[in-house]
């Protein structure tokens, strides 16, 4: 399903648009992603640059970075996830309302990066489901924007209506 599938053509359809519920829901969701900046280390600086005027993430409708998980739907894990912090990352993820997505930004969040050590979790996908991984140490803002566009494509292909009935595991504490 692409954007043109839900495009409005007055010559063909008069004043009526016929489409699938998934297409409408996804189209709305993917153009209004509210990121939660989970800035944990150096990558967060590039995340900030992506939001600034030069790279301008608001071109994709994503400029509303929310520091409250209740108001955001895409967690961008930008930085090194230590085992001590992992608990916090998971709790914040659990507090985000559905639907929600996770982007692992940079080598650290994706795999632990160069930190092969006792203190660092070897990839944030150990504790939260990751939708898009971004390589780089740090990735340039362009790479993050590319990842966000990939995420938009992914959101566009979801079975959103069916997903409504699915339940997820939540940490109780």
């Amino acid at each position, binding site marked *: 399903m692409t954007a043109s599938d839900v495009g409005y053509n007055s010559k063909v359809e008069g004043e009526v648009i016929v489409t699938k519920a998934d297409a409408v829901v996804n189209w709305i969701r993917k153009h209004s992603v509210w990121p939660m900046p989970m800035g944990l280390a150096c990558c967060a600086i590039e995340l900030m640059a992506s939001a600034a005027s030069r790279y301008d993430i608001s071109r994709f409708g994503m400029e509303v970075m929310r520091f409250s998980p209740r108001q955001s739907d895409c967690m961008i894990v930008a930085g090194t996830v230590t*085992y001590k912090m*992992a608990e916090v990352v998971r709790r914040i993820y659990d507090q985000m309302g559905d639907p929600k997505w996770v982007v692992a930004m940079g080598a650290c969040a994706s795999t632990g990066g160069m930190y092969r050590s006792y203190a660092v979790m070897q990839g944030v996908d*150990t504790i939260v489901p990751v939708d898009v991984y971004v390589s780089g140490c740090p990735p340039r803002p362009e790479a993050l924007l590319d990842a966000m566009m990939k995420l938009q494509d992914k959101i566009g292909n979801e079975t959103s209506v069916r997903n409504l009935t699915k339940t997820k595991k939540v940490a109780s504490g």
Partner: protein
Amino acid sequence: MIDEEFIKGLLAKHSFLSERESIDCLTLESPSGELISFLEYLKTEESFDMLVDLTAIDHGEGEDNRFSTVIHLYSLLHHGYIRIHASCNDNNEPSMPSVSSIYPSANWHERETYDMFGIKFTEHPNLKRILMWDDYPYFPLRKEFPLAGIDTPLPAADVAEVTDASVEPAPMMGGPFVSSANGMVSDSEPRAKDESWTEKNEKPL
């Protein structure tokens, strides 16, 4: 000035001190029992008013004095550093008097030293871990602790339950990730130096 005369005077006044060989600043060995009174003297009488660093050394299992703490002081008057080295008496339950009553900045340094080496600082106002979580069972900078870590449960039991995650030894995949100090940046980036082994293929002897 921290010169020969100053050092001589210091050693004459404090018979318990001895000088240690050092390639940079003046380094003194002090017994842990005299440490507090000596630091008090250095701060009030000799103007060593700034504690720059406090850390520890693990000299390795089997050494007579396995753990020692190292304190760096700076004097704004002398424009110079002094390093004090004090050995912990007990190798199994190392302890050291806390100097945070004299230098408040020692508070967090001592917590870190406790966290990493397990040296107990007596009379410390708030001696708990600062980097690792409270229930962590090991002291990671001790010599016997592997860099990759040791299997341990996650700090939060409920998170561990839903995610099935735990603290696992990190894959070394050809040795620790280190950067070499010299050469082109592209060659000196952190990487495993010996890529001939992984956790699955044994390390060649």
